[in-house]
């Protein structure tokens, strides 16, 4: 019995030291220490040993078991070490090579910009409404308090269609259509494409996009307009951005206002590297959008009672915002479809 234990131990330790991989190691473990293993079998055969010898033999078997288990751990560490060394020598990838890229296209920069602007107003409960781009004179001008033969129409440079309709010059006709369909209160956005007959150059394109916002309810004030626009500006341009509102003129709002934001290049100082800031031309301000309180004539045109409700509207030109946002210097790039440009976004 003693010899048998010694033999099993010897054979196991030899096999373990000669094993070249973890599978071989495990095979030895199963063959010796497994349920049907040789050492396990010896323990089972203990009843054949005379009772007085059993403690001594038992101790011997346990000692062998402990030795083999220790050798298992040792050799496992040896094999893992050898494997790593071998792998380091043979299995090398060139980590400087580029990976296999999954396909990736790009969203248009105007889509991205519009989406971000819209989502800020959506958080405040404004709802996206759509309307036609080919409009009637009444929806684009008449209902918006542009009298016929009025110089205010000059600024709009309208594209006319042969069938008497026109390309909308702003997204404001959508507010007319929504107010005609629904009773107040109204809290809407009208993003979309608009058209003006401008010759194409680095800062003009005959098609451009706008987001229009409209709020109509009882007791809406100019202060509310400022509050919402300030919230928007801080969300979009950062909390340190300042706003300035100054009077302007649009036929469909009264009072009308332009909103300037503090220049994001010189942070409102008007100076950059001891020279006049090139973006704001030294004023420290940058024009962002037009807005105002809805003119009572617009309410009357859509069948609202201007004595009952008030409201405000604003319109943001998306291209302007995107030009500054991405530091693009030529508006035509947005519309040419050049992938060298578009794939940068």
């Amino acid at each position, binding site marked *: 019995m003693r010899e048998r234990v010694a033999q099993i131990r010897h054979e196991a330790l030899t096999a373990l030291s000669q094993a070249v991989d973890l599978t071989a190691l495990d095979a030895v473990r199963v063959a010796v220490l497994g349920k049907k293993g040789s050492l396990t079998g010896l323990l089972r055969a203990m009843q054949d040993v005379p009772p007085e010898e059993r403690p001594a033999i038992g101790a011997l078997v346990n000692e062998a078991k402990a030795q083999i288990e220790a050798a298992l751990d040792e050799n496992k560490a040896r094999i893992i070490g050898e494997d790593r060394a071998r792998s380091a020598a043979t299995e090398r990838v060139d980590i400087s*090579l580029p990976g*296999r*890229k999954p*396909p990736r*296209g790009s*969203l*248009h920069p105007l*889509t991205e910009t519009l989406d971000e602007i819209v989502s800020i107003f959506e958080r405040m*409960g404004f*709802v*996206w*409404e*759509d309307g*036609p781009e*080919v409009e009637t004179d009444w929806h684009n001008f008449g209902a918006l308090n542009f009298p016929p*033969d*009025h*110089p*205010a129409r*000059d600024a709009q440079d309208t*594209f*006319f*269609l*042969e*069938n008497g*309709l026109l390309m909308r010059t702003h997204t404001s006709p959508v507010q007319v259509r929504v107010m005609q369909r*629904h009773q107040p*209160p*109204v809290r809407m956005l009208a993003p979309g494409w608009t*058209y003006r007959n401008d010759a194409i150059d680095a800062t003009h*394109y*005959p*098609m451009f996009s706008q987001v229009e916002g409209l*709020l109509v*309810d009882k*007791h809406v004030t*100019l*202060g*509310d307009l400022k*509050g*919402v626009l*300030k919230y928007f500006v801080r969300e979009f341009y950062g909390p340190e951005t300042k706003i*300035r*509102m*100054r*009077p*302007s*003129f649009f036929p469909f709002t*009264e*009072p009308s206002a*332009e909103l300037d934001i503090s220049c994001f290049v010189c942070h409102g100082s008007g100076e950059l590297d001891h020279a006049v800031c090139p973006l704001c031309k030294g004023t420290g301000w940058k024009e962002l959008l037009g807005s105002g*309180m809805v003119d*009572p004539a617009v309410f009357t045109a859509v069948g609202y009672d201007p004595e009952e409700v*008030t409201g405000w509207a604003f319109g943001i030109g998306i291209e302007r915002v995107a030009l500054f946002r991405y530091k693009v210097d030529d508006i035509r790039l947005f*519309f*040419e479809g*050049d*992938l*060298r440009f*578009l794939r940068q976004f």
Partner: protein
Amino acid sequence: MRVTYRWLKEYATFDWTPAQLAEKLTLAGHEVEALEKIGPAYTGVVTALIEKVERHPDADKLTVCLVFDGAERYSVVCGAPNTEAGRIAPLAKIGAKLPEGKVKKTKLRGVESYGMLCSRRELGYGQDHSGLWCFPPGTPLGVSPADLLGLDDHVYEIAVTANRPDCLCAIGIAREVAALARTPLRRPEMKLEPVGGEIDRLIKVTILDPDKCPRYTGILVRGVKIGPSPEWMTQRLEAAGVRAINNVVDITNYVLLEYSQPLHAFDYSFLAGHQVIVRRAREGETITTLDEQARRLTTDDLLICDAEKPVALAGIMGGLNSLVTDQTTDVFIESAYFEPTGIRRSTKRVGVSSESSYRFERGIDVEAVQFGLHRAARLMEEFAGGKVTPGYIDEYPLRRQPVVIETRPEKVNGLIGINLSNQEMADILRALELGVTEKNGRLLVDVPAFRVDLTREADITEEVARLVGFDNVPDTLHQGVDAEGREWPLRGFLRELRRLLVGMGLTELNTISFVDPKLLAAVHAPAGLRLVNPLSEDLSVLRTSLLPSLLKALAHNRAHFNQNIKIFEARRVYLPKGGSEQPDEVHRLGLLLAGTRHDVSWNQDQSEVDFYDLKGAIEGVLTPLGITNVAWKRPDDAGPYLPGMCAEIVAGGRNLGRFGKLSAEVLEAFDIKGAVFAGELDLQALLEIHVPIPTYKPVSKFPPILRDLALVTDLDTPVDEMQKAIHNTNPRRIAEVKLFDVYTGKGVPEGKKSVAFSIQYRDIAKSLADEDADRMTKQILTVLQTSFGATLR
């Protein structure tokens, strides 16, 4: 509108710097687009007292002067003949910039000179170089000559909004400045002639059309001598961007810029019969305007005529036949009010406009035409040597009705979000020269004639808000009842669609909605609506298909050597409905693939895209949108595509669109070579049939059994239908049917193809046995044999 700082100071009292004034104006709604400094081109020049003069030791014509600028003393070598102790002259200190260059420390014949004493010419003031420019005794020292004499100035370029014609002149802007400073406005003082008198014997004015010309005034200045204008007037005209011509013309222009009152100066001797008749033109009547263009008129145009002929196109431009010339001695000045919309229609129709018509069509001050008239006459007396014939003509057949706006202060406060007292509000309005009386808690605002923009309470509200300052209105957020949410259904859908396409490697385009009609025809698209005033023929029609835009973008990219073109555009097309009806604006998705499948890369293959790349992209859109039961059909009309390489997509009973390989003649129209795959999908249809929220199907815990089947069938047999048929033999137990091979050629008979499916059997409730799989396979083979004539290979 251009006006200078010093000019404004003439009429308004304020103590803002030029930059502060610019900001005040901008914040009051008169945006200063540019603020330019004008003045002589020098720096570093100050007045200095010559304390001592000594002869130069080595030069007869030079002197050495000790000069004092009030702070320091300098020794300056000077060559001027009039150096004399006690005189005050301009000193250009070292570092000063003069029109001719920079002043440096120099040695003149061995004596150092710390600066330079200057003549007028050396500072850029005229041609006088006879000696030093000397200032009167007592002139302060250390001051720039420009500041001393008011020769430098600042020009404001102001964007005057379309509703404020009263601000198209210096007095108008000054009125705003005075209101902001709460100081009174000072108008030029002058003596008015009495109406009528001697002039009535010299000229007769008749208005035949008072609707178009409610007021006409005139005055006669005799004995003028045409010559140059005074320097100050020339400078102001130039600052305002008007070229000086001669004293009489310059004076009319100056009054236009000062009062916004357009004037016209006729040579009195050319007015036949010494008559002025204001009447409509006759149909087809012509006049040659002073720009030497013959203008053909209609009865809607207004003419100024003498006894025989038209002499001016009223309010727009004078006639060539009555122009003031160098020989003119007697000038008849016209100052009138013409009805705005009539002038506007005429300028549009005739195609000519002027500074005058620009103001008439916006509306001038009908109550002030006589002031502009007299201002011009007095200036001609002063600067053109003329003499006003006593009296003036004032025909005013259609008097302006007073405009009184009843204003409720609580409404004004409520709209702005402020709380002014009635008194504060009235003070603001009075500062703007509006008449205000209070009655029963309301303000009755009497609007002067120059404020043509004020007609309603809302307009008064704006005036109050403007002068309070928008920045002083507290910011608030409206707490109202929320409006019903009814978002545009395509909004979220388009967003998801774009993200899907970008994830598949396609790049989004946005191109202009106008196309060349020839290109629409080239892609077999219907004709689009035409623009009346397109920028060019290739942007003259509203697109009815997205394909031309995608193909143009492809051509552009090819021209710039961009490869691997995978693009899409999700936009509307405009399908005409006929007549004056608005077109159907239909949202479409346009897709285009061309070139290699992948960018050039060491580990990606460089094969070209094919039909299945495009179909895969379309499936890649449809599947996530829950549109799975799709039929792909060969259309009867392949349109711009090759008939054998075109498919129509049908799902949920809707035709979703068409795609395929573009035919050679289509590509030729765009000058494109190589294979191009493109398609258009109807997004509205997609939206209507898509399943936004999928319904869960249970997954099995039991193992699958896999069987592969290779079958031989006719080349034309639709594989997608075979696939469906296989699945339908036992939908509950056939978890997946995958097509893993399609083969024609050796080993497969002519006209046949081999298709191989991998079928996964799996039951939700138990493990399947091999016998179950065998049985189901047998059933599949029977179905494929009977329905498609397919046999096991």
